[in-house]
């Protein structure tokens, strides 16, 4: 969360793509908000039980999927992430009882609205992964990464220069400060 907020602090927008050398094939950049009680533990389990899942995901631990605000999702897309995954406990066993129900309403509204606006639906995905579902977490991340590969890079907010969708130097090209 600190890295994400740090990025927002100085209003930067960054383009994760340019982190890799231009020759290598484009890899989607996925930001995952994982609820620490279930999904984060699930991700942990996937790791300890050697489950293979693509490394495109950057994980941010949030107290509950209900904590994920629409601003986080839009800021992530604005910063240049190709997709956002919000994952929380199954409805009913949320540590805070109603956190994931609220998240469900909020994310449903955001998904539908972004779809209407023209954002490819695969860019925002949500899943219920419990602490014991290591396998499901790996599967979800693989599917989401595959979806993003089909959809292509996130050029939603790039500044158009004389018509062509090019990346402006000062506008989009930035590497996430991995601290």
């Amino acid at each position: 969360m600190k890295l994400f907020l740090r990025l927002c602090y100085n209003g930067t927008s960054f383009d994760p793509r340019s982190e890799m050398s231009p020759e290598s094939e484009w890899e989607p950049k996925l930001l995952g908000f994982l609820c620490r009680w279930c999904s984060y533990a699930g991700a942990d389990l996937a790791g300890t039980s050697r489950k293979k899942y693509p490394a495109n995901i950057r994980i941010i631990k949030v107290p509950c999927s209900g904590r994920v605000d629409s601003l986080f999702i839009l800021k992530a897309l604005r910063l240049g992430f190709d997709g956002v995954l919000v994952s929380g406990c199954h409805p009913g066993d949320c540590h805070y009882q109603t956190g994931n129900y609220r998240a469900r309403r909020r994310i449903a509204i955001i998904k539908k609205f972004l779809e209407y606006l023209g954002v490819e639906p695969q860019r925002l995905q949500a899943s219920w992964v419990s602490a014991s579902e290591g396998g499901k977490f790996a599967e979800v991340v693989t599917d989401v990464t595959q979806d993003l590969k089909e959809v292509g890079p996130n050029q939603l907010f790039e500044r158009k220069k004389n018509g062509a969708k090019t990346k402006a130097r000062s506008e989009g090209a930035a590497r996430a400060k991995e601290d």
Partner: protein
Amino acid sequence: MEQKLRQEAKALLEQKKIDWIIGFEAGSLKFTTTPLITKDAADTERLVINPFITNNLASFLTEMKGRVAIVAKGCESRSIVSLIQDNKVAREDLVILGVPCPGIIDLAKIERLVGKERDELDDISRDGDKVSVKVNGKKKDFTASDVLFDHCLACELPTPQEYDILLGEERKPSPELKVSGQNIAALKELTSTERWASWEKELSRCIRCYACRNVCPACFCQRCFVEETEPQWVMPMPRWQDNLIFQIIRNIHVAGRCTDCGECERVCPVNIPLRSLTREMYDIVDELFKFKSGMDKDALPLMVHYEQEEAEDLFR
């Protein structure tokens, strides 16, 4: 209806039942009205009700202190109810003077139809479903559905449910959803990249005057996320990316509170079709959760309530 309003307002003020009255008075330009917010009974003579009472007066309620009487059309009464649901306004502090609203005339539509600007028209008069416009002598007639605001055509509650005094007889809603939803339907035909590009073009005109936010009764935050500097979610410069994110987040925040009063689109000085956003959010909320904003004073607000089973198909 005007006479009754003036008597009621004068009586309420004189009997000290209320401290303030919010209503409409004649505007300084032709065919306009302007909000009248006053304490002394003498001003109640200036209260009017005519086909041009466009403002949503509920947006003034959050900054008023004391007991307030408010003239409320259908959409205003729904905004008031939505404010009550959010505990921003106490029902007992309010005296709602309900106005069964026949729909407000959209001067921009008349300008397009007649080809003359609003201050060149001589007169606009309406009786029932016929609206006649007099332009340098010649009279032109239009049907109501040609000249009313889109949101008035789609109105589901012309007569306020929540009122203390009803100033006229009840009106049945007769929404013409097809006509009012033309812009949204047209947008839905485009592909997603075309739709996004159309929003990019529209929002590049925005100058961040925040009239759409300040005129909206559902936008009552003390400090808006746009004014947040730590962290800086959205840059304050009027760049189309930040303007679009501002509109997206604003619509997500007012989901379940927006009563489709259409003010945001009317006041935008650079003519951005904002109602195509708010109306779509209104429909999404209706479709997903069967929730209509501002209908029932005791219902829980949209985001506070939840059902066991809903919108499961969107989740993996």
